[in-house]
């Protein structure tokens, strides 16, 4: 998956990947994996198709109104997903002044020119975790989610979670 997103970010249609030899996934998903001849030698190489999301949707702790975004704590693949995607939508715990980015430019995980929209959305990762703002799952709300999925009532759950928000 990471190689597929890297291919998207690099602007190439696919990337060769090591480590897929022996995996049934190569046979099961020919639309995602293909074996091709090594153009430089006699061997073969597994390739994975690029993924180019139309939008990356990333929740962060801090962003400015232009879309410069900082991720505190683990960033997972989010900087890569934003680069693979055509455009990014940022939801953020809080809006900060651009001076925050200027103080420590290397901490800007996602730069403004990748971003189409910024939404100020405190609690935007609930009922999950957003370190260090809220560091435990909201179990009552999570159990309510599991029930809503089973009952086919996700929209009602959304109405409850988004109540009072514009």
């Amino acid at each position, binding site marked *: 998956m*990471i190689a597929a*997103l890297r291919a998207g970010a690099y602007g190439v249609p696919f990337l060769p990947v090591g480590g897929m030899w022996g995996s049934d996934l190569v046979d099961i998903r020919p639309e995602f994996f293909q074996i091709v001849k090594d153009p430089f030698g006699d061997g073969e190489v597994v390739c994975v198709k690029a993924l180019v999301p139309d939008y990356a949707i990333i929740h962060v702790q801090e962003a400015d109104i232009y879309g410069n975004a900082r991720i505190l704590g683990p960033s997972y693949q989010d900087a890569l997903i934003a680069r693979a995607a055509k455009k990014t939508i940022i939801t953020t715990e809080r809006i900060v002044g651009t001076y925050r980015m200027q103080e420590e430019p290397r901490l800007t995980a996602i730069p403004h020119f990748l971003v189409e929209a910024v939404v100020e959305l405190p609690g*935007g990762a609930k009922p999950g975790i957003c370190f260090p703002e809220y560091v435990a*799952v909201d179990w009552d709300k999570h159990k309510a989610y599991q029930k809503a999925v*089973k009952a086919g009532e996700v929209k009602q759950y959304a109405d409850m*979670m988004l109540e009072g928000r514009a």
Partner: protein
Amino acid sequence: MRDKLMPLSKAADLIKDGMLLGVGGNAMHRNPTLFSLELTRKAVKDLKVCGAAPGIGADILLASGQADTAYFGFFGLENEAGLAPGMRKAMEGEGKARAIEGS
């Protein structure tokens, strides 16, 4: 630089039928959960989601039936939060959603 601040509903309106979405975060961590929940209140459909370890943010769109395909390396909520219920419902048994596991 351009001011891109907008309300949640307006940002969600950028998402159109058939789009592939890269959903950030991991399992129960820093997912754009409320954005996904806002999308469930829209008519948008035939979405595809992708991520190395998508979690509840992508699960919501499979639970609502708005996403029909997920590209992932691992898809779950982890620890006590367990498996991803929306993904399971969409893919198991009579489920119509496609799983494209990328390792």
